[in-house]
């Protein structure tokens, strides 16, 4: 039914495609994708609330610590064996698809993470629902774009639109959604991207407002920041930056350690869930996505003492690292907010204990600043952090300290951990190709596109004198040498034989097999261009033969690479 509906829409869009302007087309598709993304957000939010409530009576039982184990285990089972999708929380997968697979995502990704993250989070796992919705929205966007027959560049924008609408819908924050899409997912600020993303964000937020009311995550509250607060937030920014780095490293550390200890995905997730469940017996606020904790803190109703708040901050950090690191399904967005708010509260309480006369603002204000700072630090996306907090709390009065705290945290985190949590796995595999970078341009070009096939080859048994007509009649500076079976043997450089060419005595005395060089230097047609250039650099040579199964296919020159690289750069601005 749903698929049929999508098919009909896509048919309509395809008909529209060649009649309307590209920008208009993108806007139309973006609004469709935005509504679906918004819907996905609402669905996940509703289901989470529903299941959490249903499970609530069991919380009182001592055995309830097994609940997160069961949930995480089932979620890993569902992802790994039923849908055969890798674990992971979604955002890196979307970024990978955008950079390496030109925005292609499987249709099943549009619902897989929604189900698995419901299992993980509603049962008590400490993770956020945002990344699953982002994955879902992005996948809906990708599939609609594919159905509508869009090209790669347009599809990538639409994938960004899906992700943007997801964030916009969950937090009722269209601007934050758009900025998240650009800053984190696409990594490219271009006007062509911005307008459809804005439309999709607005649609996502609008759908969510329509179905869930205007106050989605947090209540709007008035906050005011004085001069003391602005000065004090420098310290908070530094602490949040350090905290973000610790959190990122803990997440990766747990993932690596747990993989080494337990090989089965399901068992690992279940064990992780049980650990979090045990923590939850004593510190119940580490469980779940934690929006209620944030709400309580922002309303200045979190009454535990300084030490307990500090413990809560650390516990939430550890619980999230365990849940996600062990393979539970969910994102780090909401946990960042919880850790940030608790951290901000800790900072406020510590400061007022150490210096009671300091005229600080409300505790809620520092919770706000902490959220933005931790989000900016972990995602290394300060704008997303700033706009999200401004939008969800409606506190435009605190923009100044927000910017300051987020910038400090992001800069410090970037200094200590140059690659953000989302990008870390991709960068480790060399797959982080941000748009308009050298890496992404080189990844686009392939050896097969650059190969010059009209190369004149020579036999190793030919005499030096036989080279003279070849030199006269070609423009080549390098001649690949073949043996009698046509297999590649080596390369002759004109520069190397130049002194001997004018010595007629050598013309019939030397055969080419004696003159060739660089027997081992060759590239395969499937090498990536970065490796080819590195080889050229290393050998100090500007031409390399392309060899496949010992046969010479042609040559690749630095000159051709420069020419094509420049053309590739020129057509980027479309």
């Amino acid at each position, binding site marked *: 039914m749903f698929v049929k509906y999508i098919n009909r829409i896509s048919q309509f869009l395809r008909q529209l495609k060649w009649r309307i302007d590209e920008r208009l087309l993108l806007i139309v598709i973006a609004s469709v994708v935005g509504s679906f993304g918004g819907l996905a957000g609402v669905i996940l939010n509703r289901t989470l609330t529903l299941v959490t409530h249903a499970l609530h009576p069991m919380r009182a039982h001592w055995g309830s610590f097994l609940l997160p184990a069961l949930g995480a285990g089932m979620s890993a089972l569902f992802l790994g064996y039923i849908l055969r999708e890798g674990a992971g929380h979604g955002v890196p997968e979307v970024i990978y698809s955008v950079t390496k697979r030109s925005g292609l995502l499987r249709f099943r990704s549009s619902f897989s993470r929604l189900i698995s993250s419901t299992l993980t989070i509603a049962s008590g796992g400490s993770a956020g629902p945002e990344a699953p919705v982002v994955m879902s929205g992005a996948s809906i966007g990708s599939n609609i774009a594919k159905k509508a027959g*869009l*090209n*790669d560049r347009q599809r990538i924008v639409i994938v960004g639109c899906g992700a943007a609408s997801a964030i916009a819908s969950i937090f009722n924050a269209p601007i934050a959604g758009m900025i998240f899409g650009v800053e984190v997912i696409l990594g490219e600020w271009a006007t062509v991207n911005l307008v459809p993303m804005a439309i999709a964000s607005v649609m996502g937020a609008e759908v969510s407002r329509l179905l869930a009311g205007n106050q989605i995550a947090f209540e709007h509250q008035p906050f005011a920041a004085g001069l003391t607060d602005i000065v004090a937030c420098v310290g908070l920014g530094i602490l949040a930056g350090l905290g973000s780095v610790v959190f990122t490293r803990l997440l990766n550390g747990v993932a690596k350690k747990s993989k080494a200890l337990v090989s089965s995905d399901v068992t690992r997730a279940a064990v992780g869930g049980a650990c979090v469940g045990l923590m939850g017996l004593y510190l119940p606020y580490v469980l779940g996505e934690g929006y209620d904790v944030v709400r309580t803190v922002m309303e200045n109703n979190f009454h535990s003492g300084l030490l307990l708040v500090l413990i809560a901050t650390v516990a939430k950090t550890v619980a999230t690292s365990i849940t996600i690191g062990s393979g539970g399904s969910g994102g780090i967005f909401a946990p960042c907010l919880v850790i940030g708010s608790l951290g901000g509260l800790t900072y406020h309480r510590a400061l007022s204990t150490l210096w009671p006369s300091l005229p600080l603002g409300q505790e809620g204000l520092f919770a706000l600043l902490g959220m933005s700072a931790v989000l900016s630090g972990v995602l290394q996306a300060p704008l997303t952090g700033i706009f999200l907090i401004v939008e969800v709390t409606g506190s435009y009065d605190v923009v100044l300290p927000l910017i300051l705290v987020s910038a400090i945290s992001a800069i410090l985190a970037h200094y200590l951990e140059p690659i953000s949590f989302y990008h870390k796995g991709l960068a480790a595999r060399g797959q982080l190709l941000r748009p308009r970078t050298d890496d992404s341009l080189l990844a686009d070009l392939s050896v097969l596109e650059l190969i010059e096939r009209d190369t004149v080859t020579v036999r190793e048994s030919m005499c030096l004198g036989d080279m003279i007509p070849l030199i006269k009649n070609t423009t080549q500076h390098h001649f690949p040498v073949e043996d009698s079976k046509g297999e590649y043997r080596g390369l002759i450089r004109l520069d190397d034989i130049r002194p001997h060419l004018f010595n007629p005595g050598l013309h019939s005395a030397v055969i080419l097999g004696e003159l060739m060089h660089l027997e081992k230097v060759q590239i395969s047609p499937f090498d990536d261009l970065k490796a080819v250039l590195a080889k050229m650099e290393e050998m100090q040579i500007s031409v390399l033969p392309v060899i496949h199964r010992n046969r010479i296919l042609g040559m690749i020159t630095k000159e051709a690479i420069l020419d094509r690289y420049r053309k590739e750069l*020129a057509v980027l601005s479309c």
Partner: protein
Amino acid sequence: MDLTIHEVSRLLRLPVNTLERWVRQGKIPVYKSRDGYFFIERELRRWAQARGLVLSSSETHTSHHKESLGDSLTAAFKKGGVVYQVEDDTVSGVLRTLVDAAPLDDFINRDELFQKLIEREDLSSTGIGKGVAIPHPRSPLDNGPVEPGVTTCFLDTPVEYGGIDGVTVFVLFLILTPSTRVHLSILGKLSHFLRDPSFIEFLGKRPAADELLARVEAMELESEQTHP
């Protein structure tokens, strides 16, 4: 006008597989029809210009084609014609008379040509020995001929030309070409023929225009058969 991907590949000097990728990635304006995609030439030109990509135009191909046709020495001799009974004691006098008498294209500025010939002689004499000189401008004329021409000029009295072997010059070949490449090609052939002593002897008889032409044609034919 609609273009196929192969035509665009030639225009942009890019392989088809790159263009196919550009289409897939949406980097080039393209339209889809029932039998594949096509490009609109006007839009493509505007697109390329905005990005600083140079399209190879069809005109450059034709002019290149024309140029290579003009490498025949016989045709150049035919175009340049023959001038007889030139009489003067000095090199510049000879050249002046030659330039004035030669059957050149109307648009060629004879004064400028004369100046350029003298400039070239001042750098180094064009007397190549055995009584032969090949006066020519150092670089192609600004408003030069489209086809190369070789004007043969027989002197009644040999003149002291400052050639390499000190022999007085009795025959001059005025070479006018559209480009350095053609100049070298014409000069290469001519100097190859001049190495043949029987040809020099033949020139010494101051042959009639059609006789000379027939001899040059025969020599060119022979050399083409031996060195294809």
